[in-house]
């Protein structure tokens, strides 16, 4: 089959690879009908997330039709012919983490748990197409994929919603929603969102659905800010505006009650010297992640507020504003999304037309053009917000 493979830093290639086969008895094979490129794929593309190997199949946002199931798959849960969306973290449903709805921290699904444990202190769940640190599972930017513990993870789609309406249940819609949910939004809350990429857009939509009085988008890409403005959100362009002053102005001097970091480890900074400082530390490996957005979210948040982190971090950061965080009674909440917890309730919100996930799609490409998709997404060309690929 054809699959989009990581070759070397900043190079992916669509090549022929073997078709996937059943490796565990509860596996299923899915014929992929739609798949997408995620912002976190860009952290893999350029090699910031370690343990990528030449030939790794990329992609953790995919859906399709079940074409084969292992003998251990519970037939009441999944059958050949079912149409499914596959959540990016692989859960087992049986360990303490899964039983407590912390699916992305599943204790059983990462065969390279020992490696992840050295990096993070405790291991994390397996993830499709997301380096060997999260298990070395082939991803879904391909014609077929092997789905693990298939009677626990995939969400069956039984209505006539289109692929584009449900595909993002695999990652970015639940991720954005969890970012807003962690904010524990109450009446009158102003929510500021750093990053107006696809996850940031869904965090904004979710904040509104959950009752935020005002939602503010912070970015430096004009078309992304326009996309947020078109939904009625306030916008701040950090390339030409002082974010702190603008936030104080928009909140009557209070600061946002809740702040969401939807940027993560490769943030850029409006002030060249700060950007250079962190980029240099990253280059010599004395810091792995650039935390501009996180720092600004912490110092901007009103005292006693919540900072919710859904942008991806991989390792270590420098100059964490611990004084601001501690003295001002801030709560920091975070996590890779526990997608399985949110898929069904969000599917219902899509059915009720409360959220329209298709609004972020700007590029529809055949799988063969995946490298071009990565290119325009990474460099923010052609107004690229979200790329959907069809095999």
């Amino acid at each position, binding site marked *: 089959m054809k699959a989009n493979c990581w070759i070397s830093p900043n190079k992916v290639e669509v090549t022929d690879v073997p078709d996937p*086969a059943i490796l565990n008895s509860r596996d299923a094979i899915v014929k992929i009908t739609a798949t997408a490129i995620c912002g976190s794929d860009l952290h893999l593309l350029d090699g910031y997330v370690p343990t990528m190997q030449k030939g790794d199949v990329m992609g953790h946002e995919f859906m399709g039709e079940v074409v084969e199931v292992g003998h251990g798959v519970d037939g009441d849960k999944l059958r050949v012919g079912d149409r499914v969306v596959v959540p990016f973290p692989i859960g087992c449903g*049986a360990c303490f983490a899964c039983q407590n709805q912390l699916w992305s921290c599943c204790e059983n699904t*990462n*065969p390279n*748990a020992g490696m992840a444990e050295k990096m993070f202190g405790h291991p994390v769940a397996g993830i499709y197409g997301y380096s060997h640190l999260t298990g070395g599972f082939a991803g879904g930017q391909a014609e077929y994929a092997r789905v693990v513990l298939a009677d626990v993870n995939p969400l069956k789609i039984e209505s006539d919603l289109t692929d584009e309406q449900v595909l993002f249940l695999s990652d970015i819609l639940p991720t954005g929603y969890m970012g807003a949910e962690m904010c524990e939004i109450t009446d009158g809350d102003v929510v500021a969102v750093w990053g107006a990429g696809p996850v940031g857009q869904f965090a904004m939509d979710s904040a509104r659905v959950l009752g935020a009085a005002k939602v503010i988008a912070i970015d430096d890409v004009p078309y992304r800010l326009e996309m947020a403005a078109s939904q009625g959100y306030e916008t701040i362009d950090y390339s030409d505006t002082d974010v702190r002053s603008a936030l104080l102005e928009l909140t009557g001097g209070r600061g946002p009650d809740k702040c969401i970091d939807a940027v993560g480890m490769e943030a850029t900074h409006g002030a060249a010297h700060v950007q250079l400082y962190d980029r240099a530390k990253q280059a010599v490996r004395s810091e792995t992640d650039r935390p501009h957005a996180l720092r600004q979210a912490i110092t901007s948040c009103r005292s006693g507020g919540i900072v919710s982190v859904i942008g991806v971090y991989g390792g270590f950061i420098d100059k964490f504003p611990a004084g601001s965080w501690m003295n001002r009674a801030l709560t920091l909440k975070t996590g890779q999304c526990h997608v399985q917890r949110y898929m069904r309730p969000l599917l219902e919100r899509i059915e009720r037309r409360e959220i329209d996930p298709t609004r972020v799609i700007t590029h529809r490409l055949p799988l063969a053009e995946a490298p071009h998709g990565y290119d325009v997404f990474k460099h923010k060309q052609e107004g690229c917000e979200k790329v959907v690929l069809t095999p």
Partner: protein
Amino acid sequence: MELTSATTVTRPPEEVYAFWRQLDRLPTFMAHLDEVRATDARRSHWKASAPFGQSVEWDAETTEDVPGQRIAWRSFDGADVPNAGAVRFVPAPGGRGTEVHVTLSYELPGGALGKAAAKYFGEEPSQQLDDDLRRFKQVMETGEVIRSDGAPRGKQAREEFPQHPARPLTDEELKEVLA
């Protein structure tokens, strides 16, 4: 050399004990064991892979067996690598299942065999036992050892760095890993 490790399994102590008590199942999750066979109620025959494709065999006796709580064993005199082990099964607080505490001890001989064994266990000898227990937990909680494209061999994952790429296996590779 003494190794210790612990894990918690979301199953009751009686069930976890009963699984471990079937010694012939140990090789499904313990990387270095090829075969364990009960020869009578208290005796067993163990076969393990050693460095350079060699294998080591020994007989052991069960020295303690308290259902639902504890199993201990040790090799008989004359084993190439005298060894002993014990597992305690302790109810985890708050109904969280069973804590499994394992201790293994090896008397490493001098000479080439001892050196080879030390090298085999590497700089972090407990890592192998940690990984064994992780797989034990996988088997108890999900039914089998989880395989990925990068680590398709299940329990032999540790030996595979750098790994197989995270792409599906060829038919020949598949035949080999599932053999």
